[in-house]
């Protein structure tokens, strides 16, 4: 028999008792059959609705455990059995206490179950997002296949209004796609040939054919689901306190109830009935569930809310750490800036661009695409390169037409010969926040290429908001001080740490951590060590899998504003956890003494049924407060 059925049976059977309780003081009306009717009704409740509490309590007891069922079972059994005894010696009975406590506790459990499934709603929504089938090319035509049969490399047709089945790349057609369910971005995104699409997003206007790249558990949606699942069931350090309390809570309450009885009966000379009522109230008001539910439900709702907005917080520990930050450090390229640098000037002849582009086509440096794009636009022919080498943090070198070519930064220690005019030009360009790449043949500079990566349009506002939250903002970059400083000024960043090699990023974070609690925001493979080192690593945007693995918070959209939103969400969730814990503790800390009759001197007493009601509502209020968190704006 489920909880809902048990509740309704208990409610219907206890209604006559309620009517009598309300009417009797005014009219003296009693139930037909008096105590016997009460005994029969309550016995039915005890057998049908309360028996599971008793059997659970007993099996827990056998294993040296005690939980809420122990308290409810003991409290109601005491009231029930004493009332039977009182009936035979013609003393007042309190069957209704047992009946109402069972009814109220079950009511609490029914509502709590509903709320708990509400709290995990975000997860169930995510699980149903994926497409069930896809139009896959087999032979000459597209046929409908179940999603499990799609393999990487398949060509899939997606018609307007349909879900994109898997992660892939558009190979023909164009369309605009609603990606809000995965990235939280409400404006549809235009896609054309060559663009990546995400499984579970909705194709709106055009018909497209995509090539499947990631299927099954490799898709972005599957990864998001995995992260959210882990987060929702993780622990927050703040729980350690409640974990300790919950171990001893119930047995301690049993002892307090006994002491309550002994004090009233033995030391204050009250009747057995009065002392028992106090003891029973203590048993039924104590609520370990509220303590146990306070953190997990809020975590569940908070992380679910984040997922809806494309903000994935990996676990409770990160959530807690995100509340205690002093400093936030940003990687520059791709994080503060758009990450799509463009060549703005070429100093020197066509040869400069040609040699640079020939080498850059072999490089993975973020500036390489800019040089190649400029070469393509200028219709420069690329030359073959031998002995290509990437020199970390310096540049690249290789042999073109038997000449040693170097493309990279102007550093004193490389022993390059640079004409004074060029050196001057470098300074001028750097003042304009441009990255200057020097091209040298046989250690002699022949020209310069200036590249500029402009800040994202939301950067300035996002940084301002973070500063308003009281955070110090720092930019960490491999670029030189002049370039970095210019960008930092444009967006309003407090401090710049420039000229840091990728391998030294983590060390730079560690140095800051000596005095501050640090968050690091980055997006690339070379950011992974710094993301792991920071107290809170925030991996941004279409970041690489490595960055997603290393980050504690993953932002699916490449939007800087989400950094502030993620921190706000953490604060909101953490504050809700604290509020829940506060209420759960207060309920018990205040409720138990009141129930024990400590304040009876000033007329403050609780009958067992009111205690039962209070208990039911304590866990309910904790869960609903968590559910309400899901309605807040971030």
């Amino acid at each position, binding site marked *: 028999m489920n909880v809902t059925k048990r509740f309704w049976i208990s409610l219907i059977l206890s209604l006559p008792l309620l009517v009598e309780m309300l009417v009797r003081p005014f009219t003296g009306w009693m139930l037909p059959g008096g105590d016997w009717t009460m005994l029969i009704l309550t016995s039915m409740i005890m057998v049908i609705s309360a028996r599971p509490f008793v059997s659970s309590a007993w099996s827990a007891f056998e294993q*040296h455990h005690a939980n*809420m069922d122990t308290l409810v079972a003991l409290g109601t059994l005491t009231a029930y059995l004493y009332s039977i005894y009182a009936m035979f010696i013609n003393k007042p009975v309190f069957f209704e206490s047992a009946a109402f406590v069972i009814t109220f506790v079950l009511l609490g459990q029914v509502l709590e179950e509903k709320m708990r499934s509400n709290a995990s709603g975000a997860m169930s929504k995510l699980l149903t997002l994926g497409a069930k089938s896809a139009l896959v090319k087999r032979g000459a035509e597209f046929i409908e296949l179940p999603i499990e049969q799609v393999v990487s490399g398949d060509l899939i047709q997606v018609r307007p209004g349909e879900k994109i089945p898997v992660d892939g790349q558009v190979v023909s057609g164009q369309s605009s796609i609603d990606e809000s369910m995965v990235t939280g971005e409400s404006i549809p995104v235009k896609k054309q040939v060559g663009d990546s699409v995400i499984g579970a997003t909705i194709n709106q206007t055009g018909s497209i054919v995509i090539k499947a790249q990631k299927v099954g558990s490799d898709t972005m949606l599957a990864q998001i689901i995995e992260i959210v*699942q882990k987060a929702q069931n993780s622990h927050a350090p703040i729980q350690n306190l409640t974990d300790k309390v919950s171990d001893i809570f119930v047995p301690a309450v049993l002892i307090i109830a006994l002491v309550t009885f002994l004090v009233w009966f033995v030391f204050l000379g009250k009747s057995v009935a009065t002392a028992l009522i106090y003891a029973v109230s203590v048993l039924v008001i104590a609520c370990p*569930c509220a303590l146990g539910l306070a953190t997990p439900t809020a975590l569940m709702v908070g992380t679910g809310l984040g997922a809806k907005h494309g903000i994935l917080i990996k676990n409770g520990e990160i959530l807690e750490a995100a509340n205690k930050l002093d400093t936030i450090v940003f990687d520059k390229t791709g994080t503060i800036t758009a990450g799509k640098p463009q060549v703005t000037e070429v100093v020197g002849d066509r040869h400069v661009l040609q040699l640079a582009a020939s080498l850059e086509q072999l490089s993975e440096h973020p500036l390489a695409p800019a040089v190649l794009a400029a070469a393509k636009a200028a219709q420069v022919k690329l030359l073959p390169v031998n002995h290509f080498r990437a020199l970390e943090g310096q540049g690249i070198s290789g042999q073109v037409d038997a000449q040693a070519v170097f493309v990279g930064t102007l550093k004193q220690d490389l022993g390059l010969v640079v004409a004074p005019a060029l050196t001057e030009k470098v300074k001028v360009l750097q003042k304009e926040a441009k990255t200057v790449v020097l091209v040298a043949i046989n250690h002699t500079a022949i020209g310069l290429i200036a590249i500029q990566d402009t800040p994202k349009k939301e950067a300035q506002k996002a940084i301002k908001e973070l500063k308003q939250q009281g955070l110090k903002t720092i930019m960490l970059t491999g670029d030189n001080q002049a370039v970095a400083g210019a960008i930092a000024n444009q967006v309003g960043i407090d401090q710049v740490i420039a000229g840091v090699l990728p391998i030294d990023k983590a060390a730079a974070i560690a140095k800051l951590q000596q005095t501050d609690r640090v968050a690091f925001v980055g997006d690339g493979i070379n950011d992974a060590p710094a993301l792991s080192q920071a107290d809170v690593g925030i991996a941004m945007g279409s970041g690489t899998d490595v960055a997603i693995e290393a980050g504690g918070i993953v932002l699916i959209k490449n939007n800087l504003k989400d950094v502030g939103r993620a921190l706000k969400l953490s604060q909101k969730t953490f504050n809700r956890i604290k509020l829940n814990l506060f209420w759960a503790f207060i309920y018990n800390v205040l409720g138990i003494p009141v129930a024990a009759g400590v304040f009876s001197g000033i007329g403050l007493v609780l009958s067992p049924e009111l205690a039962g009601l209070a208990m039911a509502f304590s866990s309910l209020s904790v869960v609903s407060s968590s559910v309400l968190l899901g309605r807040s704006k971030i």
Partner: protein
Amino acid sequence: MIKIISLLVGLVVIAFIAWWFFGKRSVQTGEAVVDADKQSIDIKVKGGYLPEQVVLKKGIPATLNFKRLDSSSCLDHVIFPKFGINQKLPQGEVEKVEIDTSKPGEYDWECSMNMFHGKVIVK
């Protein structure tokens, strides 16, 4: 007289509660049964978990068969925080929970109210 007897009985019961719930006791440990390339173990969910500790062999796919015989709503889910598993346990039915045994270590599990606990040890 009755009061003195009550007091003595009360104190004895308090001492019993303290001993029964707070006293040291051994934890029931179960070894999974390895069959070909799989291992599995049955766990009874009744007033807690039987056994409370499960030892699994590293690298062999493992299944824990939870069977809830207890109507307590506290035990209606089983949660493995480290694996992100949150599995509903319908009363009276066997629910299979797959455990990743690729990394050795200790992995706790708990009920939805975090009152009852168990532990998987991967060796």
